[in-house]
């Protein structure tokens, strides 16, 4: 129901360029992720879509209609803010009812929608409490329920689950994906956690100082990053960027050779030395020193390597990424 398009949008705050000529289209019913380091313009993009900010140049289209002069209330887009922004003087129930009350929805319909949202997020038992009395996870659910309750054309979420601990985050993101599927609405999601972005997004945009560096399906970006910057942001442990010549089979014209830790092949031999071993159960991360460069390798299981051990490293040429002087991917 909602296709959101940016056409060459630029937004400045004083001398800082928050969004720099961004163009992209989020398809209807898509789970779209904005991903990048802090202060790269992710939140500004959400604020522009909401209508809380006006672009300095360029145009934002919602369903092919320019929305520059449409106020936040009329855009019918729901937002979950990074700090959740619950109303502290209202109970959870009043918080969730708020969007409907403000839109003069009949009381019977409000009750029905409230019950529906509360059931969906399992918060029926805490509706009478004030935000101060709720745990982090409960607050986040109330904030999402407030967004969900009024059936907007799209949801925007600004890192809403970053306050949760790792295990809860994993549950929450699965849940979010399910909610988005059920609601059948566009969801634009901002995160600084690459694992989270990759696990939930249909497509994602990688940002760098207000510029969009690459857009695509997470796996496509992971496998074919268009720059060293994008390659470095995705994957954990991060990709190794090495001088050419360190690995046999690398292209000679490349300035940097990228190789994912899981693609580094390690065997007994000479030329490199293990400096660190991190056994993580399912796999083991080795820190390796080779010709003055440091790199990491991720191996299945728990192979018997010890710090100080001499090894030989290699990689299949088709698993290598070659980057030019500007960090751009070299055409193969």
């Amino acid at each position, binding site marked *: 129901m909602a296709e959101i398009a940016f056409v060459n949008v630029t937004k400045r705050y004083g001398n800082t360029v928050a969004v720099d000529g961004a163009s992209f289209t989020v398809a209807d019913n898509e789970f779209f992720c904005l991903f990048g380091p802090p202060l790269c313009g992710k939140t500004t993009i959400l604020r522009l879509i909401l209508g809380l900010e006006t672009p300095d140049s360029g145009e934002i289209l919602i369903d092919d209609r320019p929305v520059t002069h449409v106020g936040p209330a009329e855009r019918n887009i729901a*937002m979950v803010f990074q700090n959740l922004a619950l109303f*502290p003087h209202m109970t959870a129930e009043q918080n969730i009812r708020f969007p409907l009350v403000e839109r003069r929805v009949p009381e019977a319909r409000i009750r029905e929608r409230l019950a529906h949202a509360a059931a969906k997020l399992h918060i029926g038992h805490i509706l009478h409490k004030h935000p101060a*009395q709720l745990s982090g996870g409960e607050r986040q659910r109330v904030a999402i329920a*407030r967004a969900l309750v009024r059936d907007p054309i799209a949801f925007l979420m600004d890192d809403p689950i970053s306050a949760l601990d790792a295990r809860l985050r994993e549950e929450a993101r699965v849940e979010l994906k399910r909610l988005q599927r059920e609601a059948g609405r566009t969801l634009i999601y901002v995160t600084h956690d690459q694992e989270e972005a990759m696990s939930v997004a249909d497509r994602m945009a990688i940002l760098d100082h207000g510029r969009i560096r690459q857009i695509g399906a997470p796996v496509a970006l992971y496998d074919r990053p268009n720059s060293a910057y994008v390659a470095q942001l995705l994957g954990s442990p991060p990709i190794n960027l090495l001088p050419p010549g360190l690995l046999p089979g690398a292209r000679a014209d490349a300035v940097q050779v990228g190789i994912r830790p899981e693609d580094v092949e390690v065997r007994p031999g000479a030329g490199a030395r293990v400096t660190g071993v991190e056994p993580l159960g399912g796999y083991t991360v080795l820190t390796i020193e080779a010709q003055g460069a440091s790199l990491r390798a991720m191996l299945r299981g728990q192979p018997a390597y010890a710090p100080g051990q001499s090894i030989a490293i290699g990689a299949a040429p088709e698993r290598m990424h070659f980057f030019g002087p500007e960090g751009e991917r070299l055409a193969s």
Partner: protein
Amino acid sequence: MTRSPLIELLRYAAILLAVAITLVPILWMVSIAFKPVAEWQAAGADLTWIPRDPTLENFRYLFGRSDSALIVALERTATRPILASILAASFGTLIAMTAGTAAAYGLSRFGAGANLPLALIQLRLFPPMAVMIPVMIMWAFLSLMDTWWGLALIYGIVTLPFAFWLMKTFFDDMPREIEEAALVEGCTRLRVFLKVTLPMMRAPLASATLFVFILNWSDYLVALLLTTRQWATIPVYMASLSSSMTGQLYGAKAALGLIAAVPPVILGILIQRHLVRGLTFGALKQ
């Protein structure tokens, strides 16, 4: 942490001293207020904390109900000054809080009137008394001399910077996302202010109001210059409480002082429950 008993003792001694310095004048006032003429007169020269012969005579005297032969009856009773003080201080506070809150909100949220803070602090750079003579002349031209509304107006102007600065700090501290959430959820700017901002600002509003009211209530100099007879406030009236026979009427002054302490105390008790800290706690992720 354990402290040595000596330090503990000194600590309590210091606290006791501070409490005594604060309370002694107040208790002395209470004591005098209930003493008969013979006991509070300087000639009595017999200091007691507890009145030997407690009486409400001083209060009766203030309202012209005294039948004592010892002091001359008052020309004017305390009723009108009390009314004058209540009207001038309340409306002055209303003016300062309304204008100050609106200005603080405008500046904090929309950056409107960026020079306002400086202009307002400039009002406090010199004592208000420095401009009171010109104000007197203006007020005389505007027929505002010796009226409670004239006094309320100048009180509103003099305390406006306090209201503005207090409220601006609170507005600056309030996360804007909460208001933006309300905007996104379908409110107009005005409704955001009325339904979200003001309710959240209850505690700051209450404390700022109390502060401004006490400032206005305790003013002496401005009222002394701008009122003469009709609408003299409690402090001005109190200063006039003397007679040729007895000199300063300490008993009546103490009684009036006790009465004057009542409104701020009542106001303080009324808004005490709003003076809670941790106002936005729980609205945001920590």
